[in-house]
């Protein structure tokens, strides 16, 4: 499934698109929800179109123009945290490992 070709002038988010992005973000959603989301998303995205009225051809994005640059750590070891506490917080573990159900290799 691929998102329908971009047409930001008349945005509308189909239920198929809702299903696609739900999977992308790993949310299981119910069929009846897709309809509601599709309507709400279309309305919200429609509202965002007012940005298209603004000419930004010569404008740099704000996030690449930070007040700060070159913030570093020195390469020095800090103590690690307690493995026991970490393991106790895990939904599942085996020995000293985090345990999760079978992985299908679809990265």
């Amino acid at each position, binding site marked *: 499934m691929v*998102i329908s070709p*971009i047409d*930001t002038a008349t945005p509308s*988010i189909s239920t198929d*698109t*809702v299903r696609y*992005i*739900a*999977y*992308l*973000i*790993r*949310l*299981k*959603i119910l069929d009846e929800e897709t309809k509601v*989301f599709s309507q*709400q*998303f279309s*309305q*919200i*995205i429609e*509202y*965002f179109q*007012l*940005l*298209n009225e*603004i000419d*930004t051809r010569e*404008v*740099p*994005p*704000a*996030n*690449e*123009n930070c*007040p*700060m640059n070159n*913030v570093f*750590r020195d390469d020095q070891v800090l103590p690690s*945290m*307690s493995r026991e*506490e*970490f393991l106790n*917080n*895990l*939904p*599942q573990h085996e020995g000293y490992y*985090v345990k*999760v*159900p*079978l*992985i*299908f290799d*679809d990265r």
Partner: protein
Amino acid sequence: MELYNLSIRKAHELLVKKQISSVELTSAVLANIHRLDPKIRAYLTVVEQRALEQARKADIRLHSRENITPLTGIPYAVKDCFSTRGIRTTCGSKILQDYIPQYSASVVEKLNNAGAVLLGKHNMDEFGMGSSCENSAFFNTHNPWNLERVPGGSSGGSAASVSAGLSLFAIGEDTGGSIRMPAGFCNIVGLKPTYGRVSRYGHIALVSSFDSVGPLTQDVYDCATVLQTIAGKDPKDGTSLPDPVPIYTTSLEKSINGLRLGIPREYFQAGMEAGVETVLQDAIRVFEKLGMQVQEVSLPHTRAALPVYYLILFAEASANLARFDGTRFGYSTNQKVESVIDLILQTRQEGFGEEVKRRIMLGAYTLSAGYYDAYYLKAQKVRSLIREDFRSAFEKCDVLLAPTCPTTAFKIGEKKQDPLTMYLSDIFVVATNLAGVPALSLPCGFSEGLPVGMQLIGNHLSEEILFQIGYAYQAETEWHNMHPLIT
């Protein structure tokens, strides 16, 4: 006056003079929590024994007269978005309902080192997504001024708590008004500091580019006291600012005569309730009386602020919330699952509320292949223009004045079904987060019995001036001394 209604400043005086002990003070606040919180529901977690233990330690410190800070022995609480070692941290979400962190946020460490007494964790909209506290996965918090109304959000529990005497101050977090808006709804002071002024380490991120940690207090003096304790460079937060932190409380009485107060034209055109506007006009007259030069200024891209804010929020939040997958901490589905993908899908389906799902799906949509330029990049470019608006406004004036919210506190349930209308209540607060500048929300009157807040917006790292103006205003007015009568 009841001990639980004391300001930090007054409580500190009494503690240092040994007229009260921290244990007495803490016990009084805890008793008030027992009395009122069943109605207000500001707290998700109260750590009574731990608080009393900390209070005892604070008393020892106060007795020794060594290493006393203005916050030693002062009971406070934090919004539940801050990681607290050994204390349940939910971020208002089912997906963290039983999560007990292994480490504490830097702001909590700092307050702990200062000797402040942590009472517990405040209710909030799930992951900070909301303007009413109705998006908490656990329960609604009620506005102490009218229990049928919302306290604002997302730091609603914190604002309600300080307003009702359930903590002497609170630490909240403001991504797009989340400190200021509830502060305005609950008649207290709330500061969104300059982005980077207070470490975000240990704050469960919503929008890493906007999140600002700040105090909610009864008055400006207290706000200055808390900020000077929590501000400063943190080696664990690469975006925290290295600039030295002033002792804000020593310069509060500096005259504000001659300072220029800008009134952004667009904010008053955008539409607000008549009662809110009346109160604002009264406040402007107070500032004139204090010798400030009032002038109109323009922030031309105001209308674009809200879509820019939400576009960036959706995108960053969709990534920030990806780590909640049920494999390493927090909630994990009890359903039988075949694979790790099922585990993640099911856990997130069960663990996230509707508003969170809506926003992270929209984030995935606006970032997905082919859409980045049209949405995220476009928003970041318009954000540059909004920043530029503020930069040029601050060439003409020292601070800007604006309402905190177009309305007073609305009724619980009133806007919940309509996400877009709910988003519109953030109209006056989000631009400051886009620009990264500080803004101080102050009580400035009432409309039909409900508090109205105004915000003073300053240039980067101008908290000192904001405090001076706010302090002068509070010396001239009594709004901040009004407490709700809760029956």
